[in-house]
């Protein structure tokens, strides 16, 4: 019997207004998923709050009536962070989409969480400023979602990830209070660093309502290179050699043959269908240093066996290449209907070994992988091409990922570089960070959210309450499908 019954729904409706409340079966169905494969669950209702006061009241009510809150942006997450749990109310923040301020004296932007990442980038670039984090879904995803998951992107290698650009946050806590962290100060050592702690908390600690972001001057020059390789191992060696030559490109992306073909099917931009791998590289900065870096990289690429190296001749060509790379995950769905994408990450020096481990997993468990990712920062996207309707194959795919995660950890790596733990990797969290760390996380969570109403069951499980029917760990999925 869900605690979110009709009586409680009426109370929620009176808080947000009937027009901002949805509970038809059609709407519940349409908020039962995000971009994560295999997981879905219908919420009891969906709300679009107008202001902070409404959110505050909803959170208080959730504590009184014991229903769960699942905050959501555009629903493009890849670890299940915004997938509803049992007995839950989805709080959608996409209508909070105003850029409140761009301060070009302090180089900051103040935004509401529903602002689309790509749109913010366009706006700040008009003023000669730059917001580097660029997840593959940047034209769709929200800043709020990026902060909640500490999203990365193609430019992570040189510019870092979302956490490197968050100066402050405002978040409504489960008790309804507003927590403000950080500010426009570049240096701030007052107390615990709560701001960085909120980044990547995956909606388990509060509902983010405002974000203060750091901006930097936009680089004046970009050179985009593409290199084809007949041997995948040569491309991995080239990546290692570029890094050890002390060059830091802004982008150093890798696509294997399967990915190249799917992306080419979608974009028709003339990618080499027979190449074993391609590298997409961008260097940026000012003046002649950029040219020097590009020349040095070209030399390394050729020395390491690239069969073809080309620099984009126009901004248009460069942007086509980058868009093509961003489509990789979804384009892989051309092969099979279910694409399980993970983001195991290893120290950069171990990248060639990790690529080999993914191929080993593919052979050992008889499943197909497309492999691509941010080679420069060791963040791979091994993507299993499968079909959720084939239980036996899904089982093998999950075993393959078990293998991959374990190998990544053995290499000193981690289970997720930029997508977050969510539902899909929580089973591996202890292995990755250790029992004391997970214990501390749980204690912190419960001290802020004593009734465990905020996105429960994400990152880790605290109690089985109201996580019941959702296959929330891989073991459960295995039971469920077998």
């Amino acid at each position, binding site marked *: 019997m869900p605690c979110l019954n009709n009586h409680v729904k009426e109370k929620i409706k009176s808080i947000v207004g009937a027009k901002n409340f*949805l509970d*038809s*079966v*059609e*709407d519940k*169905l*349409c*908020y*039962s*998923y*995000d*971009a994560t*494969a295999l997981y879905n669950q219908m919420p009891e209702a969906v709300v*679009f709050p107008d202001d902070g006061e409404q959110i505050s009241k909803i959170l208080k009510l959730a504590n009184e009536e014991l229903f769960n809150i699942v905050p959501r942006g*555009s*629903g*493009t997450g890849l670890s299940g962070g915004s997938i509803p749990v049992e007995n839950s109310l989805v709080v959608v923040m*996409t*209508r909070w989409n105003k850029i409140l301020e761009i301060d070009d004296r302090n180089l900051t932007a103040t935004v509401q969480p529903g602002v*689309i990442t*790509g749109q913010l980038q366009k706006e700040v670039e008009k003023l000669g400023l730059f917001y580097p984090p660029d997840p593959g*879904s940047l*034209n*769709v*995803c929200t800043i709020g979602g990026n902060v909640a998951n500490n999203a990365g992107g193609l430019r992570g290698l040189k510019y870092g990830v979302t956490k490197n650009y968050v100066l402050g946050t405002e978040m409504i806590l489960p008790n309804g209070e507003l927590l403000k962290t950080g500010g426009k100060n570049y240096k701030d050592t007052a107390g615990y660093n709560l701001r960085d702690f909120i980044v990547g908390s995956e909606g388990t600690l509060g509902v983010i309502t405002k974000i203060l972001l750091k901006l930097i001057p936009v680089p004046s020059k970009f050179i985009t290179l593409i290199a084809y390789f007949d041997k995948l191992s040569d491309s991995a060696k080239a990546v290692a050699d570029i890094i050890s030559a002390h060059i830091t490109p802004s982008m150093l992306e890798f696509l294997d043959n399967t990915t190249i073909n*799917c*992306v080419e*099917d*979608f974009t028709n931009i003339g990618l080499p269908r027979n190449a074993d791998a391609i590298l997409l590289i961008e260097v940026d900065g000012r003046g002649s240093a950029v040219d020097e870096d590009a020349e040095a990289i070209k030399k390394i690429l050729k020395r390491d066996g690239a069969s073809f190296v080309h620099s984009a001749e126009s901004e248009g060509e460069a942007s086509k290449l980058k868009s093509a790379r961003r*489509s*990789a*995950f*979804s*384009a892989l*769905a*051309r092969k099979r*209907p*279910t*694409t399980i994408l993970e983001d195991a990450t290893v120290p950069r020096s171990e990248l060639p070994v990790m690529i080999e481990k993914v191929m080993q997993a593919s052979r050992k468990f008889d499943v197909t992988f497309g492999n691509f990712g941010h080679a420069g920062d060791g963040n791979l996207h091994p993507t299993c091409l499968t*079909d*959720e*309707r084939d239980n036996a194959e899904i089982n093998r795919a999950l075993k393959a990922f078990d293998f991959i995660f374990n190998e990544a950890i053995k290499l000193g790596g981690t289970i997720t570089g930029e997508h977050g733990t969510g539902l899909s990797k929580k089973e591996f969290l202890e292995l990755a960070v250790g029992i004391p760390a997970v214990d501390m996380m749980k204690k912190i969570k419960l001290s802020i959210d004593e009734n465990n109403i905020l996105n429960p069951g994400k990152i880790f499980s605290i109690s089985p309450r109201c996580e019941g029917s959702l296959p929330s760990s891989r073991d459960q999925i295995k039971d469920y499908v077998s």
Partner: protein
Amino acid sequence: MTKLNSNNLLLSVLPDDDVLSQCIHCGMCLATCPTYELTKLERSSPRGRLKMIKSVARGEMKISKIFAEEMNFCLDCQACETACPAGVKYGSIVEAARVVIEESGYGKLVSRFLKYIALKIIIPNKSLLKSTARLLRFYQRSGLQKFLHKSGIFKMMAPKLAEIDKLSPSVSSKFSDNHLEEKIPSAVPTKYKTAFLTGCLMNVMFDEINNDTIDVLKALNCDIFIPKNQVCCGSLNEHNGDFETAKSLAKKNIDAFGQSDYDFLITNSSGCSAFMKEYGHILKDDPEYSGKAKIFSSKVKDIMEFLADVDIEKKLNTMNDSVTYHDACHHVHTQKIFSEPRKVLQSIPELSFNELEESTWCCGSAGIYNITHYDDSMKLLERKMNNIMKTDSKIVLAANPGCISQLKYGAKKFHVDVEIMHPVSFIKKSLNANK
């Protein structure tokens, strides 16, 4: 009751589970969907609609009012298909869902009735369509239309209908198929043996554009074949879920055009070229027509596509205009025609060609969407007109009759000082500029 059985029968119209499972709900479509932009609701997004259709097809959800509304709220602009890396054929899936809705009785009664009259009775019957157009022409020219609007009677009786009435394009003084010769041979030996579709609405509402198209083909020394017994291409029927009429119209056209030998079947309406390229697909299981349909479709060329491939550049004369270009959905999203019109237009000497922001966004015309969803359509039109204003162009080119009517209406409604033209008319002006 037999309802369940008939439902199962109905659902067989929907694509199979393999097709419906292709969407991985990654959300890449959200940024390009005009209706999602309007409501910011998942159910108004391509992936939301696909999720609902999949649930209905699997028998997990019933067809409902909300389901029907959302399928009809969709513009079928297919911008999501262009954006979809996974290659989901969204347009045909939604069109199939509309069939299910119509048959299950969830369509709106009035619009169903009007659609029935228009699509089943008038459009497939050429002489009836022409008679209707004559009636409308009388209404438009006799002063009756003007009187109803000026006197305020229309506004008082039915304010929304009054606006919709203004949307309908003026009926041409002549109908193309009445005055165009069936065979127009080239004066000199020719490389280009063409046939031409006069269209249904183009024939009665846009005779001038048809004439301009013929003049451009003549200037290129084409042989032109215009069969008298050709009919509407059937796209309007297809988009509204009436597959049977669409197929029968397709067969009639295959027979009509089949009487002559030609290499290119030219159309100047992007909806027609898009759909006639699909004849091969829709008739693939028809033993008599499958082969003929495939050949027919392979010859179809939109006029802008054709012009990009022929030697026209040297014949184009200086035009000192500033123009912008709106991409019709059936061009850019359905047929992926994007660079071709730009290539032709940009080869006109001295022309200032200004790219339109969001040129590939639907203008809200979308078949009869501006009638069935007037208010939503106007929001999209306003956005389009704002973008047009930003280009500072005096002329807007659009290669689809629906877009042309909608943009003309938009220019009036939102007071934007621009002329709306079909690009082929502009090309004709350039060809004749030195004469």
